């Protein structure tokens, strides 16, 4: 029994991976866009500023911006896919098979995390090639932080996917919810300089903790100094996941 469930899970994950790779726009947008963003900002700042960003963790760090954009793109693509699948009755049809609901949605999460890793790999390669000496960060630690952040934002994505009325609205609503999170994340101005209400909002958004954790990994203070952010990401993941099990719509 569990063997068959596992087999179905990997089959579905693999099929969804192939399907995603066949969609040129989504594929290029997910993999190439964050890298291009990183390279452009890196060029504008110049290698010198980029290197000092690595040391003192300036509030604005293009590598972290690109990493968070990778996560947000993954979530936006998930929201779009879920709403298209719901509208087309694909979710309903999959649910009529012996696949469990968790398996159906879990496969999409795995696909998104896998593409996040590939995209991150491209980012690191581009950084090493174009800005030598800048990417001193521990890549494994950085990747783990991006994965944890993406997972947490994905769980919020399922809540957003439940609120999207039709597939047509998936893109604009996804963008309207996800991109303002970037502004509050501490990437552009420190969170403690925001008004109190916005600080409180920033606190329950996964991007804020993802950015703090990534900055910590980047400046070398590491997970131990930012374990609270890691815990916050896990707690938010649990909260958003349980919320989405209540509000998620299959049809």
């Amino acid at each position, binding site marked *: 029994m569990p063997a*068959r469930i596992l087999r179905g899970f990997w089959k579905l994950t693999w099929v969804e991976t192939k399907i995603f790779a066949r969609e040129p726009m989504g594929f290029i947008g997910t993999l190439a866009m964050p890298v291009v963003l990183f390279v452009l900002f890196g060029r504008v700042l110049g290698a010198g500023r980029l290197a000092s960003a690595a040391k003192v963790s300036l509030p604005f760090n293009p590598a972290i911006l690109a990493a968070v954009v990778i996560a947000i793109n993954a979530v936006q693509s998930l929201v779009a896919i879920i709403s298209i699948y719901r509208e087309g009755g694909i979710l309903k049809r999959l*649910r009529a*098979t012996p696949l469990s609901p968790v398996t159906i949605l879990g496969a999409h999460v795995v696909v998104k995390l896998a593409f996040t890793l590939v995209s991150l790999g491209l980012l690191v390669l581009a950084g090493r090639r174009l800005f030598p000496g800048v990417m001193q960060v521990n890549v494994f630690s950085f990747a783990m932080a991006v994965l944890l952040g993406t997972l947490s934002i994905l769980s919020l994505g399922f809540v957003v996917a439940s609120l999207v009325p039709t597939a047509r609205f998936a893109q604009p609503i996804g963008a309207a919810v996800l991109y303002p999170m970037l502004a509050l994340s501490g990437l552009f101005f420190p969170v403690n300089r925001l008004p109190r209400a916005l600080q409180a909002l920033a606190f329950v958004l996964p991007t804020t903790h993802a950015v703090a954790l990534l900055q910590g990994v980047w400046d070398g203070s590491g997970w131990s100094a930012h374990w609270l952010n890691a815990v916050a990401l896990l707690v938010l993941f649990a909260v958003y996941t349980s919320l989405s099990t209540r509000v998620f719509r299959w049809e």
Partner: protein
Amino acid sequence: MVDKRPVITVSNLVKRYGHTVAVNDVSLEVFEGEIFGLIGPNGAGKTTTMECVQGHRVPDKGTISVLGLDPRRDSAALRQRIGVQHQEAHLQKRIKVWEAVDLWQSLYTRVVDGDALLTRLGLEAKRDAWFMTLSGGQKQRLFIALALIHEPEVVFLDELTTGLDPQARRAIWGLVTGIRERGTTVFLTTHLMEEAERLCDRVAIIEHGRLVEMGSPEELVEKHCPERTVVFTTDDANIAERMQAMGIDVAAVERAQGNASTFTVRGEGDDFVTDVINCVAREGIRVRGFRTEIPTLEDVFLKLTGHGIRD
């Protein structure tokens, strides 16, 4: 042909959506090896009834048993034994036909050979095609394939041929009768009376959530629309009187071209058409055209509900 072992039993099913009663006290039985059709206009409650039977919706009242299982409580066991096709369903746009078959095969304990199934459904040339490139009929055939992949004992087909052209529709009808010939019970819904008449061993007419009537199409026609109509064209001017003299009701006489007239005669019962033929033969009436009109399920529906199926 049909042995009378029920595989689906629905008793006093009620399903509400807010204040709307979608299914109101429906009871029915589907027997092993038959094609059973739930027929009625769009919004009558056909799909809701079917989805309660499949275990996808929770009834507000009533009991349902499918293959001796409770569709809600035993849903995992039931999913291995029933096959479903949903109304207006889609798959992932860019999934290939063989990938869908392969994925579905991985989900069931006992499966049939995928390539043989695709060949049986005429999809072997489309193995590597993306779902989005298939025609409407091909998509429906793929959904039939996915519903049959695990050799289910009961197959549910919801509005299988809606939106298909007549040719594709006929091809699908052939496949559905093929499913029954292999011993699988078929539970389908349709708003096409011709489809129900061609395919179904028994039908249940449902309207505004209520079950109006149930039986074989022939039984229902015989019970509710027993009248037979014979229309013939002849040059014989006195035929109306001669028919009436024999006790045959002449409903209408219309003049056709020349001196010919078209007669419409109506009556009830199995013997009526024979009576008319005998009369024509005995009286030596020369007829140029002769046709009988036998009522259909469409007429039964009209009679029972007071309106046509498409109103």
